C-alpha cells in the first residue's frame, strides 16, 4: 500500500520479544478503554470524568480499594486456572463451573462439621479452614478432570465439554442452595447457609489471606513453566502434541494433568469468593454473576501471553475496572453492566491485536526514481 511518498508493508514476525508483547497488550487495553468511552458519551457522561471516578473509587477510596483487591484475587486465580491448560494448547472456559464446584466442596466440609445446624458453634479454624480449602480444590479438580480425561482418552473437544459443565454445575448449585436443598440458608431467599464466625477466613493487611495464595500460585506457576521439566513437557505438548509424543510425553497424562490443576485453582477461586471475602461467607443468590466474571480470566490470560507474573498487574487493573465500573453506574446513572460491556470490548480488541503478534507494519520511504 502506498501513502504519499511512503510505502506501508506488512511483514511476518518470526519472534515476539517480551517488551513488544507488553507494548501490544498495553495498547490493546488502552484502545478498549477508548472504545468503552463511547458508552459514557452515549450516556452523556464525560469519559474522562467517568474513568477518573472509576479509578479513584477502585484504587484510592477506603471502601473501594478492599473490594478491588478481593476482585483482583478472584480474577488472578481464574487467570491461573485458564493459563495452565492454555500452555498445553487447551481451552479451559470452564472456570465458572469449576469455581461453583469449589464453593460446593468448601461448604460441604463446613457442613460436615455441623456449620449449618449450629451457626453459633465454635469450630476450630486451624482444622476446618484448611479442610475447606482442600474441599474446594477437590471439587474444582473433579470438575476439571472431566474435560482433561475426555481430551486425553478420546480427543473430545474441550471447549464444548467445559461449557456444558458450566451449565451442569450451575444447576447443581441451584439444587444445593434453593428449594430446600441441603445447603439452603435459613432465610428462605434461595441462598446458601452462612458460615459460623469462628471459621471466617483470617485476614492480613485488612484483606483475606487468599491474596498470599493467589500471588504465591502465580509465582509458583511461573517457575514451573520456566525451570521445571513438567513445565517444558506441557509447553511442548501445547506447541505440537505429535512432537510431544515422539519425545515420550504422554498425550493422555498432559491434558488430564493441566485440567486437574486448572480446576483445582478455579476451585480455590470459589473458596475465596464465597468463604473468604469479608461480608459474604455464603454462596450468594447471584452466584452466576461470579461465574460470568471468571471469563475475565480468559482475557487476562491471553493479554498476559500466559505469563502468570505479567497477569498480576493486569488482574489488579481488571479488578479495579470491574469494581469501579459497578460503582460509577450507580453514581453517574449509567446503565447496568458496564463491567460486562468492558469485558466484551476488551476481548474483541485483544483478538484484533493478536494480529500484531504475528505481523509488523513497516514504513519505507520510496526512493524517487532518478
Amino acid at each position, binding site marked *: 500500500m502506498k501513502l504519499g511518498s511512503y510505502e506501508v508493508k506488512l511483514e511476518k514476525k518470526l519472534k515476539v520479544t517480551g517488551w513488544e508483547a507488553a507494548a501490544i497488550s498495553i495498547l490493546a487495553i488502552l484502545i478498549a478503554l477508548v472504545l468503552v468511552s463511547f458508552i459514557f458519551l452515549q450516556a452523556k457522561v464525560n469519559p474522562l470524568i467517568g474513568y477518573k471516578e472509576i479509578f479513584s473509587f477502585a484504587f484510592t477510596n477506603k471502601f473501594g480499594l478492599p473490594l478491588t483487591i478481593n476482585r483482583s484475587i478472584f480474577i488472578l486465580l481464574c487467570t491461573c486456572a485458564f493459563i495452565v491448560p492454555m500452555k498445553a494448547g487447551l481451552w479451559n472456559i470452564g472456570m465458572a463451573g469449576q469455581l461453583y464446584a469449589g464453593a460446593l466442596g468448601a461448604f460441604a466440609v463446613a457442613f460436615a462439621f455441623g456449620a449449618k445446624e449450629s451457626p453459633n458453634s465454635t469450630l476450630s479454624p486451624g482444622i476446618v479452614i484448611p479442610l475447606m480449602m482442600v474441599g474446594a480444590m477437590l471439587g474444582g479438580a473433579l470438575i476439571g478432570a*472431566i474435560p482433561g480425561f475426555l481430551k486425553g482418552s478420546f480427543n473430545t473437544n474441550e471447549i*464444548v465439554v467445559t461449557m456444558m459443565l458450566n451449565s*451442569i454445575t450451575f444447576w447443581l448449585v441451584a439444587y444445593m442452595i434453593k*428449594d430446600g436443598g441441603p445447603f439452603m440458608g435459613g432465610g428462605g431467599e434461595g441462598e446458601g447457609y452462612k458460615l459460623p464466625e469462628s471459621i471466617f477466613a483470617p485476614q492480613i493487611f485488612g484483606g483475606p489471606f487468599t491474596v498470599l495464595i493467589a500471588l504465591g500460585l502465580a509465582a509458583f506457576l511461573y517457575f514451573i513453566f520456566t525451570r521445571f521439566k513438567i513445565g517444558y513437557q506441557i509447553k511442548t505438548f501445547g506447541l505440537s502434541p505429535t512432537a510431544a509424543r515422539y519425545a515420550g510425553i504422554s498425550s493422555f497424562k498432559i491434558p488430564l494433568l493441566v485440567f486437574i490443576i486448572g480446576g483445582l485453582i478455579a476451585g480455590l477461586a470459589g473458596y475465596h469468593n464465597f468463604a473468604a471475602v469479608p461480608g459474604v461467607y455464603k454462596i450468594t443468590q447471584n452466584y452466576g454473576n461470579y461465574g460470568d466474571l471468571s471469563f475475565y480470566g480468559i*482475557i487476562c490470560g491471553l493479554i498476559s501471553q500466559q505469563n502468570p507474573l505479567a497477569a498480576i498487574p493486569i488482574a489488579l487493573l481488571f479488578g479495579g475496572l470491574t469494581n469501579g465500573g459497578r460503582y460509577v453506574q450507580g453514581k453517574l446513572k449509567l446503565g447496568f*453492566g458496564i463491567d460486562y*460491556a468492558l469485558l466484551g*470490548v476488551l476481548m474483541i480488541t485483544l*483478538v484484533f491485536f493478536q494480529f500484531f503478534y504475528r505481523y509488523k507494519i513497516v514504513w519505507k520511504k520510496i526512493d524517487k526514481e532518478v
Partner: protein
Amino acid sequence: MWDFIARSLNASTIFTIAALGELIEQRAGILNVGIEGVMLFGATLGFIVAKTTGSYLLGFLAAITIGGLIALLYGFFTITLGGNQVVNGMGIWILGFGLTAYVGYPYTGPLGMDRITDFFGLSPFFFVGVALIIVTWWVFSKTSLGLKMRSVGENPSVAEVSGINVNRTRYLSVITSGMLMGLAGAIYSLNYNPVWSINFLMGWGFLALALVFFSMWNSFILLGGSILFGTLWQLSLNPELVLPGVLSRYIWRTVPFAMTIIVLVLMSTKWFSSRWGAAKPEALGLPYEKE
C-alpha cells in the same frame, strides 16, 4: 401430549437454524466457536427492535442483519487477518455476551406483544427450519456454489488453483451462517421464550456447536439431532411428564448438557471416527494464505 411435542419441535427449530449456520461455514472450512455470541446479538437486537417498533418483521430483520455484520467481523479476523479461529470465535462469544448484557439490560422483562400465530402450538418457524435444511442440502449437493463451498473447506489451495476465489467463497458462507445464527437467536427471544434477561441463552449456542459435530456435516442428520435435543430440552423443563416426582427440577436441567457430553464422547471414539470420521471437512479450522 401434543403440547409437549409442539414445544419440543419449537425448541428444536432454534437448534436447527443455528446449527445449520455453523454447518454451512464449517463445510467451507471455517470453525466458529462464537456461535452463542452471534445468537445473543441477534436475540437481543431483535428483541429491542421488536419491542420499540412493535413489529416482529423489523425485529427479525434487525436480528438477521446484526448476525450478518457480526459474522462479517468474524470473517475479517479469520479470513483476512488469518488469526487463530478458536481465539477469534471466543472473542465473538465474549463480545456478544458482554455487550448484549449491557445493551439489553434496560429491556429486561417480557416482550409484551401478541404471539406470532402458530398451528396448534407449532411455531411457523419449524417449517422455515425444515425448508432451510432442504435448501442447504440441495445447494451443497446439486449446485456449483455448493461444490465451491465444499472444495474450499476440503482443500483451499487446490480450489484456488482451479479458479475458485477462496476468500470470497468463505466470506459468503460466513455471512450466510451469521444471518442464520442471528435469526435463530431472534426466534428464541421473540417466539420461543419472549422474555429478556442477562445471558438468557445459557449454552444453546454451544449445544448447537456440538450438534454440528454430531451431524457429520449432513443437514438431515442435523435436523434429526436438533429434534432429539429439542425434546430433551423440553423434557428437562417438564420432567413430570415422564417421571413425576423423581429427582429435583434443578437436576433435570443438567440432563441436556450431560447428554451432549456423552454424545460428543461417543462421536470422538476410535470406533466411531474410523467408520464415519471422513465426513469432516479436511481444512476445518485452518487459516488459508495465498502462496
